[in-house]
């Protein structure tokens, strides 16, 4: 995972709520066994069926920050949704609320999710619709979003922030605690099921 300290880029306004992960990346793309290359599936149904869809508009073609309506990432646990956003050039998604699994997956994939109150999301939408070239900075160290003359703070779990700032992978961190895992395993009752040997 690439470390995330601060990111500056242009932002695209996605004025939709309840964007589910089937819209972010449809199931047919999940057949792939690769970890990258999902940009062709990113919002493909909307991009295909709606010529005016925001990501079809040239002024938002290079946006690296997605500003979405509430309840972003609902539905399926597919981490491919987070990969598709990263492959599609996005490093940050801003919304007033994220679905839990999507938000959690983003912390593993290195996509930063920023929660801002809806009024702040609306203000940002207004700014980037008026001027799509607006530079938006998302600073994980100071926990602030800055654009034009606006600075807005955001909250994020300290541990997640630390992991993203350092670019640390969970498995490596957990492996420091193998002794604890072994000790716990020794306490598990014998009657708990095992899939092997098969019965």
């Amino acid at each position, binding site marked *: 995972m690439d470390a995330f300290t601060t990111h500056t880029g242009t932002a695209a306004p996605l004025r939709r709520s309840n964007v589910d992960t*089937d819209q972010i990346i449809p199931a047919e793309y999940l057949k792939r066994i690769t970890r990258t290359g999902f940009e062709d599936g990113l919002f493909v149904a909307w991009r295909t069926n709606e010529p005016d869809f925001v990501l079809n508009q040239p002024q938002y073609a290079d946006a690296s920050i997605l500003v979405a309506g*509430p309840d972003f990432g609902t539905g399926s*646990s597919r981490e491919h949704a987070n990969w598709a956003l990263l492959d599609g050039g996005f490093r940050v998604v801003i919304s007033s609320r994220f679905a839990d699994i999507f938000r959690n997956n983003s912390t593993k994939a290195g996509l930063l999710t920023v929660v801002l109150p809806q009024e702040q999301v609306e203000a940002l939408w207004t700014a980037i619709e008026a001027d799509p070239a607006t530079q938006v900075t998302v600073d994980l160290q100071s926990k602030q979003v800055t654009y034009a003359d606006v600075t807005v703070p955001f909250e994020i779990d300290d*541990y997640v922030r630390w992991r993203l700032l350092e670019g640390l992978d969970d498995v490596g961190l957990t492996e420091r605690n193998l002794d604890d*895992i072994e000790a716990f395993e020794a306490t598990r009752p014998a*009657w708990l*099921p*095992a*899939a092997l040997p098969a019965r």
Partner: protein
Amino acid sequence: MPKTLAEKVYEAHVVRSAAGEPDLLYIDLHLVHEVTSPQAFDGLRAAGRTVRRPDLTMATEDHNVPTLDILAPIADPVSRAQIEALRRNAAEFGIRLAPMGDRDQGIVHVIGPQLGLTQPGMTIVCGDSHTSTHGAFGALAFGIGTSEVEHVLATQTLPQYKPKQMSVTVNGQLPPGVSSKDIILAVIAEIGTNGAQGHVIEYRGSAIEALSMESRMTICNMSIEAGAKAGLIAPDRTTFDFLQGRPHAPQGAGWDAAVEHWSTLRTDEGAVFDREVVLDASTLTPFVTWGTNPGQGLPIAGIVPDPADFADEGERRDVEQALAYMGLEPGKPLREIEVDTVFLGSCTNGRIEDLRVAAELLRGKRIDADTRMLVVPGSVGVKAQAEAEGLDRVFLDAGAEWRGAGCSMCLGMNPDQLEPGERSASTSNRNFQGRQGKGGRTHLVSPSVAAATALTGKLTAPADLETV
């Protein structure tokens, strides 16, 4: 201090807890399927890691499986490659796999309980959001992404924060023709698709306790559609009776010890929930969705909503977009919505009781001439049992198709898909845009509504058939 059921299960699995860090939670059972595991196994290989507990891991093939000619090689090369990747990975890492053709194969959330691997008080994860299904046994079961799949494979643990607690109490008696599918659709319509975000839901009350295990699984399965982390029902005699004798259920002294422990798995008197919702089962009717998320549902006697009735601009826009996609006009009675296809199956409603309920309504009848019906048992085991009971003949004689076991038309990943503009009544769990195929229009229903709908060609409740 009084604790909820979910808190008890969570706390019993904490390997390590430290200030400023998530807890490390031990995972008793890791279920695996072909879609969300390839990159996880690749990650293990790249880092030179192995699977820590192959004995606590079980894999199956379900999402890509063609339900016709299930023993033939898969025609779609990308699907075939993904299935073959799982087979190679399972062999290389020593994981048990139930491939197509195997007697244990089926939808991952059907085979866990079927084999008796899903038991009360366990932590169970899978790279699939409907892992919440297993909570019906009083297990803490939730969906994870591929990176977390890799983490569980490597360490048999997950970093976790203790979730908030929500209770949904359903008392009263379900009227005839109303099922657990209608309960959960009503709950989601009530609290919204993010109503339970950050929470584990415990379903309680006399109506819940009266449900069979399969009916309980339907409710827990769709907890994720309300945004919940997981959904649980406390284990009881119904649970123990379901489990006893299953291949991986404990036996002898182990069984007695297990039941003794399982009997402690209840929410304590005085335990505090962060949010509580109460429903009266006797007021429920068959429920159907009209829109493009599982919360956009109504009693079947209802009418398609009018965007103008929504004061909030965002909500109004959502309803407009949903109606435009679904091709529905405000005010149309839901019972007048004609469908092209009926799908009976999925991890929500693909078990033997679901098939029996539908078969009873179809026995001796023919489905509507312009309607196609696909009946997909959730596992090879369910299929065999249905055939032993003659249900397959009932479906075939009625003009429905009888298929092999897999996720099928729930999601557009295998050959079972809707054509653009086609409308379905589906016993699955999601009606998102394009879910069942590009441009497909999905109405979520219960198995009995699915069967009644197949007979008439439009959304129909079982009770409506009596007046025909």
